[in-house]
């Protein structure tokens, strides 16, 4: 079994899906010879040929629209958007067509496509290379929004996304593309979509997060453990459709919840989770819900970006605040 990084696990899953199913196509900007600017498609062109691994012209709206057309024809397009900051030209196709084709035609034309994009900040990149606007997509009926937080999750969730008969926005936390290595068996086993993952158990406070922020959140849980506080860490993984049951069960146990994400606070996906707690978990809540997020401002350029991103310290402080309520 190979020890792989998250981005290598993405590559493994792509190769596995392509080997298993001739209808799986990979395309986007620089996915061919270059192997993707992060190397997530490295080697696929050599292995599967130019008819299945295609460098497109530079046009994200087109990439999305071509995927819709191919999907309607029964292919399983896996389109790459080079950075999430460049996904907006594709939004019209995603909102107006990918997410609606099955419903619009009462199941006649479907859209089994995956749109992959690296997202999030913290890599000292230029402007527009640090976006995390997952909430915009998670608001759209008909989509799935999936975010892995580790190599094994990347492998299993991407396979599940490709096999899913409906459109999936698959956001890859690029800050941790190479942060850790993990043993991942290339066994074609998918992980469930529509389900959270409990990364760590604890009885005092529930920390809910996804993507790269699982790192800071797990670190915060560790720090809290040193203080004798048991933090349960839930990785939401599939933001849409949202599996609230696991979160509610945990909050029933702990009575306290801290939600962590990198995206701007207002209208981030943490809002939906907190709202559901206010609706369905209110009677369990012993303390106000806390959100530790990016601020409601533009992600700064690299000199200030560390101040924007939620830190372990902010998470720990929020958990402590939640525990102050008796």
């Amino acid at each position, binding site marked *: 079994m190979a020890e792989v990084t998250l981005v290598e696990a993405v590559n493994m899953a792509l190769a596995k899906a392509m080997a298993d199913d001739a209808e799986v196509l990979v395309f986007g900007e620089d996915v061919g010879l270059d192997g993707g600017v992060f190397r997530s498609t490295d080697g696929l062109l050599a292995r599967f040929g130019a008819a299945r691994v295609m460098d497109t012209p530079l046009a994200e709206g*087109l990439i999305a*629209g071509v995927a819709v*057309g191919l999907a309607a024809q029964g292919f399983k397009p896996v389109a790459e958007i080079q950075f999430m900051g460049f996904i907006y030209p594709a939004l019209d196709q995603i909102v107006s067509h990918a997410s609606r084709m099955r419903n619009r035609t009462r199941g006649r034309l479907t859209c089994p496509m995956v749109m992959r994009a690296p997202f999030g900040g913290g890599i000292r990149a230029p402007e527009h290379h640090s976006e995390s606007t997952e909430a915009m997509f998670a608001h759209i009926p008909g989509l799935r929004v999936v975010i892995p937080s580790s190599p094994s999750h990347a492998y299993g969730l991407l396979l599940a996304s490709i096999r899913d008969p409906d459109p999936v926005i698959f956001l890859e936390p690029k800050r941790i593309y190479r942060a850790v290595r993990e043993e991942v068996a290339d066994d074609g086993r998918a992980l469930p979509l529509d389900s959270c993952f409990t990364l760590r158990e604890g009885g005092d406070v529930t920390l809910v997060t996804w993507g790269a922020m699982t790192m800071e959140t797990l670190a915060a849980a560790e720090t809290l453990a040193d203080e004798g506080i048991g933090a349960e860490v839930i990785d939401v993984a599939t933001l849409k459709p949202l599996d609230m049951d696991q979160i509610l069960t945990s909050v029933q146990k702990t009575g306290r919840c801290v939600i962590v994400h990198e995206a701007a606070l207002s209208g981030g996906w943490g809002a939906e989770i907190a709202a559901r707690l206010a609706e369905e978990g209110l009677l369990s809540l012993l303390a106000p819900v806390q959100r530790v997020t990016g601020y409601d401002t533009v992600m700064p350029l690299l000199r200030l970006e560390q101040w924007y991103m939620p830190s372990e310290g902010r998470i720990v402080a929020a958990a402590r605040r939640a525990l102050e309520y008796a």
Partner: protein
Amino acid sequence: MSKPAAFDIPYTRFLDPEGRAIVPVPAFAQDASALIPDYRAMVLTRTYDAKAIALQRTGRLGTYASCLGQEAVSVGFGSVMQPGDVLLPTYREPGAQLLHGVTLVEMFLCWGGDERGHDFAGPREDFPVCIPVATQAPHATGVALAFKLRGEARAVVCCFGDGATSKGDIYEALNLAGVWQLPVLFMITNNQWAISVPREAQTATATLAQKAFAAGIPAEQVDGNDLIAMRHAAGQALEKARAGGGPHVIEALTYRLGDHTTADDATRYRDDESVSRHWKEEPIARLRRYLADAGVWSKGDEEALIAACAKEVDAAAETYLATPPEPPEAMFDHLYATLPPSLAKQRAALIEEAAALIAEAKGNG
């Protein structure tokens, strides 16, 4: 100074507005009676169109976009499409949709606000009418890419209007079709108006066909009110595409004789005089005259056809009107292949609310 590139745009017309052949007609039209099925399709389209407007005016259909005056475009390329080809229509192509197997009832259902109208029983791969202007063009390239990857001798017809040519989606799709040599006919129906905006205000170009030069695709202009020219040009383009010859652009010159939709009042922005002028060029009278002159169409034929079309359209309208709406919860039943558990709760709540409201209504009644 050298010249690395040069281009031109040809224009084709066989019949003048009086229905006289001004140049020798192509082989398929030499026996004029071979054009009768197309003529019938044009009249059926116009009958359907009038009925749709009437239904809308009496509150039995939603907003409707008429194709009055544009029948030769749609029937022209529609009649040379093969069953294996795929159509991506706008809202003004019922002529082609009918020829490609969409039913009148399905079309009424669509405009009547019932998604089942998009579940075509016939052409299972055709796309439904695309509302966000120009967004169907990238789909067309995706479908064409599918054909190419599978090595199938099939072609795609992607329809859009003069207004749509201003939108980047069209250019991006043309460009891809050009560079990957995809089997698509990009069918521009230049009806001179995008709602209230005239053709000249959309672009400075002398033709819309030349948009194709930005993508390295051959292009031509056609008299879109001349059924023979339309069929000729579209037929050649589709044959070429199916044979692996790559994409093609046709600009059909026609005129929107009606309002933009039933929600529009075109007298606000154009004068009746110019509309009257264009009535003299309209395609159905032109072809009828040609057929009559050729001795293959009589007054009696015409009367019989009108009666038959009215009967067919009325019957379809009745079927549409007699089709009860789906139950409310249908809005959940095709969103995903399998309803996610969280949505199951919402679906149940909707059923409950609907039942309560229906009971209440009954109680009141």
